[in-house]
C-alpha cells in the first residue's frame, strides 16, 4: 500500500498520524461506494451493509489497537477490515466471492477476517460475536498476555441476551475486552428510542460495575483517545469497558434498503453536513496541511479502490471440487470415510466433506 510523502508537506507536529487516519477513512468511503456500484451491477451478492458516515469511529477505534490486540466485529465490517490493514484487494475479492478473498470466497461481505492481523471476523448474527470475543479475552488472561480484545457491535445488539451474558462474564472474570457500541441511532429501521428503555447505552455498563463512556463517534481524535485509554486499562488492569460511539449511517441498513422508511431526507442531509471525513479534512487543513496534499491522498485512494475491483474481476472463483474446504480439519477425511459420497455406503449426491486443499 502506498504511503504519503509527508516530507513534501509542511507538517504541524500535531498532525501526527492524522494523515494516515484520514487516508483510511477516505479509503473506506470510496471502497464502499465502489462496493455499492458493484452490488447494483450484480457482481456482489448476498447482503452488503455499508458504513458510510461511520468512518471516524471505525478508524479511530482500530487505530487505538496495538499490533497484537484482537478485533472481533459484527457484519458491517468492510471498514474494520480495511482499517486493520487487510488489503483492499482481499476484501473486494471476498465481496466478489473469489478464491483470493480474505475468506477464500466462503464468507462474503459479513465474514471478513485476517488472522495474521488479529482480526477474527466478521460475524452475522446480531450479538453472537460478543461471547466469542469474551472467550478470546479469557484466553489472553490464561496466557498472561498483556493484550486486549476490541469487540464491535451495533446499537441493536444491546437488547440481546448475549450482550448481558458477555458483559457479565467479562466483568465477573476481569477480562481484557472493550465492547465498542456503534450507536448509529437505528437498529435496521427501529430507532434506539423505540428499542431501548435506556437510550444512554453506555450506562448499561454500570449494571456490571464496568466503566462505560460515550463519545462523539464522528470525532476521530475523541474516539481514538477514549478507545486508547479503555484498551490500555483492559490490557494492564484487565478491566473490561463499554465505549459507546454515537454516529450515523448515511445509507440504508443494507444496499437493498433505501433507508427512508424510518427517517427523513432532511435528517440524513443534516448529518451529512457534519460528515466525519469533512471534519477530519478540516482538522488537517487547520493544522497547516495544504489542500493539494489531501487531494493527492484522495487520488491515490481512488486508484487503490479501482485496482481492487480489477483484482476481484480477474481473480478466479473458488474451485467447486473444494466445496467443503475448511469445514473440517485436514485428516478428517479418514473419520468420514465410511459415509463418503460415491462409496458403496454413501449416496452419490450427498456432499459432506470434500478435499481440504486449495
Amino acid at each position: 500500500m502506498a504511503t504519503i510523502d509527508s516530507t513534501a508537506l509542511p507538517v504541524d507536529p500535531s498532525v501526527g498520524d492524522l494523515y494516515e487516519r484520514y487516508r483510511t477513512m477516505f479509503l473506506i468511503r470510496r471502497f464502499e461506494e465502489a462496493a455499492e456500484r458493484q452490488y447494483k451491477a450484480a457482481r456482489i451478492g448476498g447482503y452488503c451493509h455499508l458504513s458510510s458516515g461511520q468512518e471516524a469511529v471505525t478508524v479511530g477505534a482500530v487505530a487505538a489497537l496495538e499490533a497484537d490486540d484482537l478485533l472481533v466485529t459484527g457484519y458491517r465490517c468492510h471498514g474494520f477490515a480495511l482499517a486493520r490493514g487487510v488489503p483492499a484487494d482481499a476484501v473486494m475479492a471476498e465481496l466478489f466471492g473469489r478464491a483470493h478473498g480474505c475468506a477464500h470466497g466462503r464468507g462474503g461481505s459479513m465474514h471478513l477476517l485476517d488472522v495474521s492481523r488479529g482480526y477474527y471476523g466478521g460475524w452475522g448474527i446480531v450479538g453472537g460475536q460478543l461471547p466469542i470475543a469474551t472467550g478470546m479475552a479469557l484466553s489472553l488472561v490464561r496466557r498472561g498476555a498483556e493484550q486486549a480484545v476490541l469487540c464491535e457491535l451495533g446499537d441493536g445488539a444491546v437488547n440481546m441476551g448475549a450482550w448481558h451474558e458477555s458483559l457479565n462474564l467479562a466483568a465477573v472474570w476481569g477480562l481484557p475486552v472493550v465492547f465498542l457500541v456503534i450507536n448509529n441511532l437505528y437498529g435496521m429501521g427501529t430507532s434506539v428510542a423505540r428499542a431501548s428503555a435506556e437510550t444512554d447505552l453506555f450506562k448499561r455498563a454500570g449494571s456490571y460495575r464496568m466503566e462505560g463512556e460515550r463519545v462523539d463517534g464522528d470525532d476521530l481524535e475523541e474516539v481514538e483517545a477514549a478507545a486508547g485509554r479503555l484498551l490500555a486499562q483492559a490490557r494492564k488492569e484487565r478491566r473490561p469497558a463499554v465505549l459507546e460511539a454515537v454516529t450515523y449511517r448515511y445509507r440504508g441498513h443494507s444496499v437493498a434498503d433505501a433507508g427512508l422508511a424510518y427517517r427523513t431526507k432532511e435528517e440524513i442531509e443534516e448529518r451529512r453536513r457534519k460528515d466525519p471525513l469533512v471534519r477530519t479534512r478540516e482538522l488537517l487543513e487547520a493544522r497547516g496541511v495544504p489542500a493539494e496534499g489531501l487531494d493527492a491522498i484522495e487520488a491515490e485512494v481512488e486508484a487503490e479502490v479501482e485496482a481492487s475491483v480489477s483484482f476481484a474481476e480477474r481473480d478466479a472463483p473458488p474451485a467447486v471440487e473444494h466445496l467443503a474446504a475448511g469445514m473440517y480439519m485436514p485428516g478428517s477425511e479418514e473419520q468420514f470415510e465410511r459415509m463418503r459420497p460415491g462409496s458403496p455406503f454413501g449416496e452419490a449426491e450427498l456432499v459432506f466433506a470434500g478435499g481440504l486443499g486449495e
Partner: protein
Amino acid sequence: MSGVAAPAPAAAGTGVETMTYREALRLAMRQEMERDERVFVMGEEVGVFDGSYKVTAGLLDEFGPDRVRDTPISEEGFLGAGVGAAMLGERPIVEVMTLNFVLVAMDQVVNHAAKVGAMFGGEVRCPLVIRTPNGAGNQLTAQHSQSFDGWFAGTPGLKVVAPATPADAKGLLKAAIRDDDPVLVIENLPIYKEKGEVEIDPDLVAPIGRAAIAREGSDLTIVSHSFATVRALHVAERLAADHGVAAEVIDLRSLRPLDVETVAASVAKTNRALCVEEGWPSYGVSAELAARIQHACFDDLDAPVERVGMAEVPLPYAKELELAAMPNEDRIERAALRVLDLAA
C-alpha cells in the same frame, strides 16, 4: 472438597480397571489436562460443587480454578466463550449441565462453532469440546427429558459422538479433546453409574467415525447409540432366550461422522434392521439410518426397516405415562419381532 467416595483412578499407567462411565470421563479429562496445558474445563458447578453429576469431581483440587472454571448460569455466554478461546488455540471442554440447556446456547453451537472452519475459508479452527448428557427418566418431565442428538448430527461443521460404555466414554472424549474441530460429546444420565472395563493407557484414543459391534448375531441388526445401546443389548438377550433369535447390536458411537459401512455390512448379513434411539424418531437419527440402510442394502432387506424412539409427545410426569413413552425394552422387542416376522 470431593464428595465422591471412590478413589479416583490414576491418570497415568497401564492395565485395565473397572470403573463407572463418569469415572472414565473424568479419567479422560485428567489425562488430557496433564498432557496438554491448553485443555481446561468450564461450566456450571464443575468446580466447587464437583460437577452436577460429579463427572468433574476432584478436578478443581488437582488443576486449580484457572483450568476448572465455574461459570454463572449463562450457557450462551460461556459456550460462546469456549468458541472464542478455541479459535485462539485453546482446548476448552465446556460442560453443559444437560442437553436441554444447550438449547439456550443453540446459536453458539449451530451458527457459530459449527461455522468457524468453513465460513472463514479454513483460516481458523474451533477445537471446542461440548460435553453434555441427554436422556430421559426419573420423572424429570417435559423440559428435562430429551435427546436432540439428531439435530446436532445433522449440522455440517460439527462432529457428534455418543459413547455407551465406560471404555468408549474415555476413548471418545479423549479423541474429541485432541480433535481440531468442534465435537459434541453426548453423555447419558442413566449410564453415568454403569461400570465397565477401561484401559488406563493415556495414549489410547477411540476413533471418531467408527461404530462398534456390541453383540454379534446373524438374524437381525439392531442399530443404536448411547443408552439405546444398553436397552438393545438387554432386548437381544431376551430375543435369544425367548425366541432363539441371534440379534446383532451395532453401537454407532459416532453420529457425525456416521459409520454407514459397519451398519450396512451387518444388515447385509442379517437382512433385517431395527433402529432404536432415545429421541423422537421423526426426522431423527433413526430416520437417517433408515435412509442410509435402504440405499446401501436395498437388495439385502427381507423386511421394512423398523424404528423405535421416544413417543412423540413432551414427556409426561406420571410414572406410567413416562414409561409408556420411552423406548422401553417391551417396545423394542415388539418391533424386533415385527422385523423378524415373528409378531404374534
